[in-house]
């Protein structure tokens, strides 16, 4: 759900149902890294409501598009994290394997 004014699309509050700090804080981070964003923050209006509000104010671009880009960025970051992690685990396995082999040789 998006709340904002029709005249000025550069400021809006987005309300996500069934989300919490997990997504909101990560999105806030990735939006604040975007030079087009002049303000971004989030709040959880009530702890027993599964809902989080994200406020986005930009320097001119539509807030909706900037938010979408922020999520896109976060997604690409996650994909990178995953590939690097898998590579690190593989490396660790290979090293352990080699160590085991040398210890057998000894």
């Amino acid at each position, binding site marked *: 759900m998006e709340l904002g004014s029709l005249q000025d699309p550069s400021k809006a509050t987005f309300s996500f149902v069934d989300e919490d*700090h*997990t997504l909101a804080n990560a999105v806030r981070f990735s939006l604040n890294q975007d*030079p087009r964003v002049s303000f971004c923050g989030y709040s959880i209006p009530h702890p027993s409501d599964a809902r989080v509000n994200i406020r986005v104010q930009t320097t001119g671009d539509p807030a909706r598009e900037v938010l*979408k880009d922020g*999520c896109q960025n976060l997604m690409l*970051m996650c994909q990178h*994290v995953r590939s*690097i*992690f898998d590579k690190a685990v593989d490396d660790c396995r290979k090293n352990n394997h080699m160590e085991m082999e040398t210890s057998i040789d000894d």
Partner: protein
Amino acid sequence: MSKQENTENKKFSIWDLPDVPMGQLPPHLQLQRTRVVCKADAPIHTDNIIYSGAYASMGIDNSVHLGSFRDNFKVEVIRLTKDDMEFDMIGIDAAIANSFRRILISELPTMAIEKVLIANNTSLIQDEVLSHRLGLIPISADPRLFEYLSANDTPNEKNTIVFKLHVRCKRGEPRRTVYSEELKWLPNGSEFIKESEKVDTKPSTYTSFTCSQDSLQNSSSKPIGPAEDKIILAKLGPGQEIELEAHAVKGIGKTHAKWSPVATAWYRMLPEVVLLEDVEDETAEELKKKCPVNVFDIEDIGNGKKRATVARPRACTLCRECIRGEEWDKRVALRRVKDHFIFTIESAGALPPEVLFPEAVKILEDKCERVITELS
């Protein structure tokens, strides 16, 4: 104002300050940006400066571009065993590291016993307490092979795993303990017959499996069953008996902790211990003795002189013992690196830890994707 101070004030001009090269933060700001500094009473600079324009006036771009993130992000696996792992994640913000941690604990699905059909229980332990204990047993079954069971679904081979427990302690025998290994997996579904009024209908059970689950294979070689064999479920006295069926379904830790795939998952920032001045001789000995986890070593620098060195900063628990007392905070600085996380995952047994982490990252990706599709 004294005359001397006056002249000093006059002499001081902003133009006399050393130039800070453009595109580089002055050292004190760089420290504030990248380190948490732990003082004797409380840590300072604990917040992350994430606003992209925070240093715009100094000509410094504080935004993180995907490219620079890709170049700087590193993972190093420190320890990897069957059910726990430790790794270093370098070059990522706490906001994202924390999202991963939160997802690991409360949003990764696993299978856990949700429904217990008790046919007979004459043991000391009450039905509801026994059911609760059963629920908390980690089940080694790959949750990715199953679907969620929603309120008006019938339990079938895609969303339910059925276990049977039938144990008895015969009269005249010593008391016995019931272990989780005695839960037997029923790949063909429930064996309890539902009572129905119509006598002529085919007898139905509490699940409606259309085929056996035999073909389902865990990622590890372990068959579907409790992740641990020796979890005590109950104790039986002579003549007591338990007969029940337990139905495990898919769920997430947010609903109930029994679905959490990790015993726990946590991270800490990399400690950095810095000696601000040379600590020598007796003071060096004293410093070495102060630290309970042996962070400092002593090296010989010739002429019978000794100097303290920081040998194992990673072991530092930040007890702040070494900066207690007069003058010590001028010799030692305790810091934490803001973008270096020592991440530890302890798996409860459903999936190995090196699978859990990528799954958690995938869930964050899915969340982003959901937002994007909802907004477009």
